[in-house]
């Protein structure tokens, strides 16, 4: 597994899209789609990734792709995956060119093309409005990969808060002002929600650890049944410079604000444990969306405490005691 290996794969998403300079979502998608050599069909929820890659008459997708609506990429992929199973049974997913029209059923099955299914959603389309469809698809056990590119807000429409927006962050619908200091609730933990569904593979990943992300993509595609990957996707609207996407992701991982871990058949494995946890302030201070908090010791302490508690809990789930 190497960068060269990823770079050598056929581009399933191409240049000419209109995402912001420096957008983390694209390299995330590129790395993930390199995780299988089989054919892939993608469904994508309304959001940055979908809108900026499919402005008619141009599409940046080099694979079959469907955008249905905002909250239903998981339901859409359920339909596609089921159609594949139904048509495969009838011998309609044949490999290469077939001239003979009669095949024995067994032969037909052997000659079917293997296709992988992936659904993308932003945090909006996954944590909030898309949660029902995601949960339903996971419960039914369809064989697909769901990737949430989490940029912690409704970014395509100008940075409104979502349930993935961190506590205290300024967004246009949870602004910091005279009496309010940004978002008043802590983030939802979607990765844990998906782990609770008991699906074969769940992971949290980061662009700062790209080979780890690549490994997770491979496992997700290979898993028989639903697989879920949540990837932190830094956004210029957090108030960072475009070239800082990877650096910020790295700080998120090292401060344990965004731990990278896997849950494989219920077994937890944390992929990176910092020897010394970076204070969350280090992650927060370079983002303008947290500017108003930098003088607020109480809120900063609350945030640090919350990160610490979640990290301890995660360690417990893995079965280890926290190193002091």
């Amino acid at each position, binding site marked *: 597994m190497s960068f060269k290996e990823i770079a050598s794969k056929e581009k399933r998403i191409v240049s000419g899209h209109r995402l912001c300079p420096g957008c983390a979502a694209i390299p995330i998608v590129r790395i993930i789609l390199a995780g299988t050599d089989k054919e892939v*069909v993608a*469904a994508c929820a309304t959001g940055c990734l*979908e*809108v900026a890659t*499919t*402005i*008619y*008459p141009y*599409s940046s*997708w*080099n*694979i*079959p*792709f*469907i*955008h*249905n*609506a905002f*909250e*239903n990429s998981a*339901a*859409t*992929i*359920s*339909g*596609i995956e*089921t*159609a*594949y*199973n*139904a*048509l495969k*049974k*009838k011998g*309609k*997913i044949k490999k290469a060119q077939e001239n003979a029209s009669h095949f024995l059923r067994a032969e037909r099955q052997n000659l079917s093309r293997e*296709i992988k299914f992936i659904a993308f959603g932003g945090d909006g389309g996954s944590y909030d409005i898309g949660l*029902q*469809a995601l*949960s*339903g698809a996971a*419960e*039914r056990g369809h064989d697909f990969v769901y990737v949430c590119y989490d940029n912690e807000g409704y970014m395509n429409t100008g940075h409104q808060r979502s349930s993935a927006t961190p506590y205290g962050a300024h967004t246009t619908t949870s602004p910091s002002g005279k009496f309010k200091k940004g978002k008043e609730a802590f983030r939802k933990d979607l990765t844990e929600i998906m782990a609770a569904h008991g699906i074969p593979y769940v992971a949290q990943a980061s662009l700062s650890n790209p080979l780890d992300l690549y490994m997770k993509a491979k496992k997700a595609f290979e898993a028989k049944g639903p697989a879920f990957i949540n990837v932190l996707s830094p956004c210029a609207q957090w108030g960072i410079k475009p070239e800082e996407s990877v650096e910020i992701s790295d700080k998120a991982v090292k401060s344990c604000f965004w731990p990278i871990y896997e849950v494989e058949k219920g077994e937890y494995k944390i992929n990176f444990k910092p020897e010394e946890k970076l204070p969350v302030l280090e992650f927060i201070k370079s983002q303008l969306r947290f500017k108003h908090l930098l003088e607020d010791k109480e809120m900063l302490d609350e945030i640090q405490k919350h990160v610490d508690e979640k990290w301890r809990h995660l360690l417990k789930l893995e079965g280890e005691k926290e190193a002091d």
Partner: protein
Amino acid sequence: MNKNKIALTGAQAVAEAMRQINPDVVPAYPITPQTQIVETFAHFVADGKVETEMIRVESEHSAMSAAVGASAAGARVMTASSSQGVLLMLEILPIASGLRLPIVMNVVNRAISAPINIHCDHSDSMACRDLGWVQIYSEDNQEVYDNTILAMKLAEKIELPVMVMQDGFITSHCVEEVEILEDEKVKRFVGDYNPETSLLKNKVTYGALQLPDYYFETKMQEADAIAKAKIEFLKTAKELSKLTGREYNYFESYKLKDANYVIITMNSSAGTVKSVVDKLRKKGKKVGLLKPVLFRPFPYSEIKSVLKGKKIAVLDRSESFGANPPLFSEIKNSLFDINARVQSYVFGLGGREIFEKDIEKVFDNLMKNKFDETRKYIGLRE
């Protein structure tokens, strides 16, 4: 001609048609009074009587979303719903028609909330009349069986989704004699579904963002397609006629030709009107019924051609709050430039019964030339 007559409820008739069509994928969510369609069909799946893959989705919104996904992937897709379920699907219905996907949905007409009510009226299907779906209404179990089979072939010909209606509880739960075609005949009639483009065949992008420079043109294609569906409906209906021996048209004309007084209404209540028409005809009254079948695309000119000079009452089983009821509006649209007197009635909301004596009163008013600018109500306690 096949003489296989069996006793079926409306829901069972639909499930039977679905069994014979053997769709690839059925994503469905239960809701009264559609549930029996899904249950009956699920039994067929469990017993291996169909090859269909069912998706027991977690909501109607996901049912239609999965239907869009499956249809875009090249599968033949059918589903069913009612009332709140149809409303929940509403966001995705124009996506299905906008992406030109031939999905067939059975709508078992039920009133919409609030207040919550599980009985029959047409407010659910009327709420989606502008979304690019072909709409076909069915008076009884025979019709809903025939219409479902017709719809499948029509949808794939015109590349647009089709919804087939029947009255909730009144026909969906009532046992009637239905003449079923042989399985082979239905199979041959609907044929094999092999779309030119699909997600499992082509690297195509569905659902791109079309800005003001392109959206209008794509929508025009849709408008053109549904307008052409009018002709395709008759063509497909003619082919079905050859198998069933029954005639199909945009509307049924019951003793209409020489009638001076006409009631226009859809679905099961048309049956009640037919009884009254027969009764009054025996007394020498020139009364008749026009029962619309194809509601979208609406056959304006054909309706106009049969209603000249007649006195008309339109009975709507739904309201359009703040405006004229839907069927009445369309009839008025059909007749706007000819001399015709039309009275609007609203009846049956929330399953309120309509009786023969009510229909007789309507004809009586027509015969006495009693017309009112405002709409009248049948069966309402006023």
